[in-house]
């Protein structure tokens, strides 16, 4: 039982990261109908930036906002310079460009900082407390920071005029233009925000896994799974989906381990987590592409 709670706890912590990645994916999908395959590598690149700034002697909590800002600018630049001119191109071209971006961010990180694993200390105090048998301080930190981030974003979109303009531009670009909203810049802002969220996710997860260029590859897949489960057109759903996938991934592996311990039969365990994510992705896409909370788009002839 104790182990199960541990698994759920760490599942929630992982889920927090998946939720962030899923949210970043949804933000770009809702405004541009594109899936940002480079999201993971961009987040990883931001994590390296954070690490670098910390190496220069800056405290994590100062470095992070700085890197978030820089990542925001990078996101806006990518949208404006690379994607905007091709917004009418066929889907395959767009997908290829995303793969190109993936390759560039991935290899640039390797080129600038090398491929050896970097040590990234947790910014959260190493204290013991009641319940720290179940969940560590960094994991709680991941969950808390994620929740704060989500609340800030919620407030931004619900309460500020710019947030409202972005929502309108994503829902109905034509009507938004007729309201004077500069839709093109709203798309760029969406990209900037997605990159910023990714920076937070990457910087939070780096202390928990190893900081190296391949860090975000599987996390991206889990982020996809989370976004699909929750509904790739629903930001709230994506967040929920991220947490669900995080917990599910651990609970399934745990159940598999239990099964093996008790009956000796091994069906599934820690080595199959990616396969589980794959199965989730395919299942959701096949059975209910709109996810739990998303809506279905009807294709008109």
């Amino acid at each position: 039982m104790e182990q199960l709670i541990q698994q759920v706890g760490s599942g929630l912590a992982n889920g927090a990261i998946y939720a962030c990645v899923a949210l970043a994916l949804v933000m770009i999908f809702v405004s541009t109908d594109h899936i940002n395959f480079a999201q993971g590598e961009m987040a990883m690149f931001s994590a390296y930036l954070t690490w670098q700034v910390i190496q220069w002697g800056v405290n994590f909590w100062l470095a992070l906002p700085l890197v978030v800002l820089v990542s925001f600018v990078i996101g806006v630049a990518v949208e404006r310079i690379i994607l905007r001119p091709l917004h009418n191109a066929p889907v395959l071209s767009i997908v290829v460009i995303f793969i190109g971006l993936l390759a560039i961010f991935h290899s640039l990180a390797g080129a600038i900082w090398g491929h050896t694993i970097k040590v990234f200390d947790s910014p959260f105090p190493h204290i013991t407390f009641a319940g720290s048998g179940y969940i560590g301080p960094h994991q709680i930190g991941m969950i808390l920071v994620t929740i704060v981030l989500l609340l800030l974003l919620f407030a931004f979109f619900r309460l500020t005029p710019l947030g409202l303009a972005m929502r309108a531009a994503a829902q109905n670009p034509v009507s938004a233009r007729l309201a004077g909203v500069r839709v093109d810049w709203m798309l760029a802002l969406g990209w900037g925000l997605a990159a910023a969220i990714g920076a937070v996710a990457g910087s939070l997860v780096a202390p928990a896994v190893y900081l190296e260029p391949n860090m975000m590859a599987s996390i991206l897949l889990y982020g996809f799974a989370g976004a699909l489960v929750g509904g790739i057109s629903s930001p709230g759903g994506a967040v929920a989906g991220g947490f669900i996938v995080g917990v599910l991934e651990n609970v399934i592996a745990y159940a598999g381990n239990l099964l093996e311990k008790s009956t000796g039969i091994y069906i599934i365990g820690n080595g199959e987590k990616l396969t589980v994510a794959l199965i989730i992705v395919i299942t959701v896409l096949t059975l209910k592409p709109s996810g739990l909370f998303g809506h279905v788009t009807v294709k008109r002839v």
Partner: protein
Amino acid sequence: MAALLEVEGLKAYYGQTQALHGVSFSLEQGGITTLLGANGAGKTTTLRAICSMVRTQGTIKLDGEAIAGVATEEIVRRGVGHVPEGRGTFTNLSVEENLRVAAYTRSDKAAADRDRDMVFEYFPILKARINQQAGTLSGGEQQMLAISRALMLGPRLMLLDEPSFGLAPLIVQEIFRIMRRINAEAKVSMLLVEQNAALALDLADHAYVLETGRVVMSGKAADVKSDEAIRKSYLGY
């Protein structure tokens, strides 16, 4: 008095297809002008062309300033409120949010608030439904919301695309009554596209008749209304 809107030799294209073949007309400050014509005559295309929503050639001047080729959102920011075909409601936003989006570009918040009060005065039903999701409003209410969104821009010129479409006659009458009030009280000039020629000719000062992308008749609304050919083709008697 210089015309508020001057259109000359306007050609418009949907892809490779040409929909307007050199349309020319003008609209005086403070006036209501209507564009009449059958389905496919190019009325909606003309409104879209004015807002750069389609590819155009030719001259479009707003208060002497050329706006052909300027981005839609910039034209809107110069004071053109377009009430589009199909209402263009933000269906997933509330009524209040719909109005707030439209006020996004207003720098004078006090003036925007005054306009909001004005909108609620014209359309009390919107105030009653203020927190309701806009997609759940009736057709007439969505039309009122669309007109209100255009008003919240504080426009000099309103373009209205078939406001009577799909609405019950009583609702249509009320909307047209309010449009007359808006024109008189808020001093908003209007370019009205309508298939319901009778209603349009009652409201407007001037009329242009379009046929397959060309202007075939123009004149004072009263004159056009009494014209024999128009009566037979568009008014049915």
